[in-house]
């Protein structure tokens, strides 16, 4: 595990927050995912050693929660809401637009490495459907046209780099 010194100190600190070490499993996994971007295969063993557990105990947690990623994602994570309110006003089209714009498929890293598009459950902004979460930023009323616009914006930023 190649973790930043800062992450390691955060990990050591967060373990002290709980009466039993096992309870720190979720926070540790979040910290590692924040640092590396995903949870590489050796995570289970590393966390288990850190928390005096067996690796299978950690693997159970990693595979249980869909927000833990076991594979790398693109530079940006585009999450399109698929739940009812968004679906009724064109969430599927929004999602298809992102996929077409970046020539990618759901859950995969786009060929240019810029994005990973995911079709996720409710993002809790039904009044402004369809909604899209790009990394930590919420975009409201994203119809196909706005999806195209957001895609162009991302591509433009990518070109500048």
């Amino acid at each position, binding site marked *: 595990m190649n973790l930043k010194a800062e992450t390691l100190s955060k990990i050591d600190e967060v373990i002290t927050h709980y009466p039993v070490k096992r309870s720190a499993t979720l926070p540790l996994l979040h910290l590692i995912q924040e640092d590396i971007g995903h949870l590489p*295969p050796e995570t*289970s063993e590393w966390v288990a050693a850190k928390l005096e557990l*067996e*690796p*299978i*105990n950690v*693997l*159970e947690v990693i*595979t*249980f929660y869909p927000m833990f990623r076991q594979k790398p994602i693109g530079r940006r994570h585009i999450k399109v809401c698929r739940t009812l309110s968004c679906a009724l006003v064109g969430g599927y089209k929004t999602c298809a637009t992102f996929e077409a714009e970046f020539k990618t498929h759901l859950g995969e890293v786009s060929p240019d490495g810029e994005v990973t598009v995911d079709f996720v459950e409710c993002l809790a902004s039904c009044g402004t459907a369809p909604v899209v979460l790009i990394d930590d930023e919420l975009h409201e009323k994203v119809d196909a046209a706005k999806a195209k616009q957001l895609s162009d914006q991302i591509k433009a930023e990518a070109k500048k780099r």
Partner: protein
Amino acid sequence: MIATAKPDLVTVNIDGQEIAVPKGTNVIEAARLVNVDVPHYCYHPKLTIVGNCRMCLIEMGMPAVDPATKAPVMDPATGKQKINWIPRPQIGCGTNVSPGLHVRTTTPMVKDAREGVMEFLLINHPLDCPICDQAGECKLQEQATGYGRGYSRFIEDKNVKPKRTQLGPRVTLDDERCILCSRCIRFSKEIARDDVLGFVDRGSYSTLTCFPGKKLENNYSLNTVDICPVGALTSTDFRFKMRVWFLKQTNAIDTESSVGANTVVWSREGTIYRITPRRNDEVNDTWMADSGRVLFKAVQAPDRLSAVKINGTDSAFDIAINAAAELFKANAGAVAVVGSGRSTVEEQFLAKQLATALKAPTYLVSRVGEGDKLLVSADRNPNVRGALVTGLIPTLPSAELVDLGAQIDAGKIKVVVTLGEDLAAAGLNAGQLAKISVIVLGTHANSMAGGAAVVFPTLTAFEKSGTFVNQQFRIQKFLKAVPPIAGATDDLIVLAKLVGAAGGAMLPTEVYALWKSIAAAVPALATTTFANLPETGQLLDATPFLALPFVEGETLHYKPAQHVVAAANA
């Protein structure tokens, strides 16, 4: 041992029957005592309770009291205290008894709950019973018949999961059949202390898995197969070999160590197919080691002895007995008997009679390995204590027959009768062996059988009945599971005939009758008979042997005597 305090009893009412049960008993166990079956999958009496299968749902209530005055509320219709029934079903496994608890298992709500749970469990179950090894001993099959709705409403597609994962060298997993009860996971963690199994993914994709790169290969892995309520975990060895309903079950004892785990031998038409543990809460709970489950392969092994031989040539039984008698006569006073910690109590008793008739010294060979602190002890002979109780040996045996070797070198011993022990392996050198005539009673070929004066092929523990005294001084009986192979003779017959050949009184050659002689001759066994020995064994008085430095360390339900522990640490 510290005497357990008398458990506090709690009176509960199950389906109208009152019963007093110890505090801490759960509803499933309490119901079992009044012969009420509460169906369950994940609950196992020797594992922690997780309550995740939901099959044991019951209706429960408590006697009503007035909230203000705490006075009992009476039901005018029956004149008894009213019962406040909880309007939702509760799980029986996770509900411990409390005074006055009322339980109903036959109401429409319970019936609906069970049908609902069964229907959900069967949604992703492949229902491949016709090709499933568990069929016939499958809880899902039994309880679907007993408590299910009888027909399916399921029209969707079932999940597809891995069908034949090798979890380890002895266990094969069919994930589609798994109902996610987690018994195997808890067993691995709590009993075997090898936490490698777990559920990955979630919802209907949940899959039982071994951690990538690890294997379920501890010496207790096959217990997961025993406790699996469905056909998900199967024994790689037994898989697809035989339908369980064709098999005859015979109670037996694991012979691999002095723990004496209780077992069941499953056989059909003289062939043994598998060995599984038998519950004995004082010895092995419901577990046994994997290594004890393959011992039956010795019965049909190619190196089984099957012909009586005199000086290497085939002979007949009576001629061989006469040859032995001649040897005894010609070498009177120069005979030794090497008994075995693998022999039964009955055989050791007869060996003692033989030694007495011949005025011969007796020996035993010890086998010491490493104990695993669970169900394989350090003493790999199942019955050393039997030899002590019957008086065959006065003290603990050593691994090498040094004294016997010295006697042979001195020319004092010229004939050795060995009960299955390999004298060369037990430390006699070629020169010493060349000086003696050996009478072998044995099951399998070893370096002795070739050069022996007389060879009597005898029986494995699966082909005869008898008793072993385990490390707790618990005498336990086992019964003949399969008929002997052709050419082999019961050890008791050979020994009784040899006693006769040595000039002793003729003794019974059959285990039930022989016990009359044993009871008469051995004070510690005076009140015991083979027929009356309970299935769970009977503890003998260990006090005469307390001072002996037994080799066993702590195992399940056994703690070595304090002074032995102190000596080991010193």
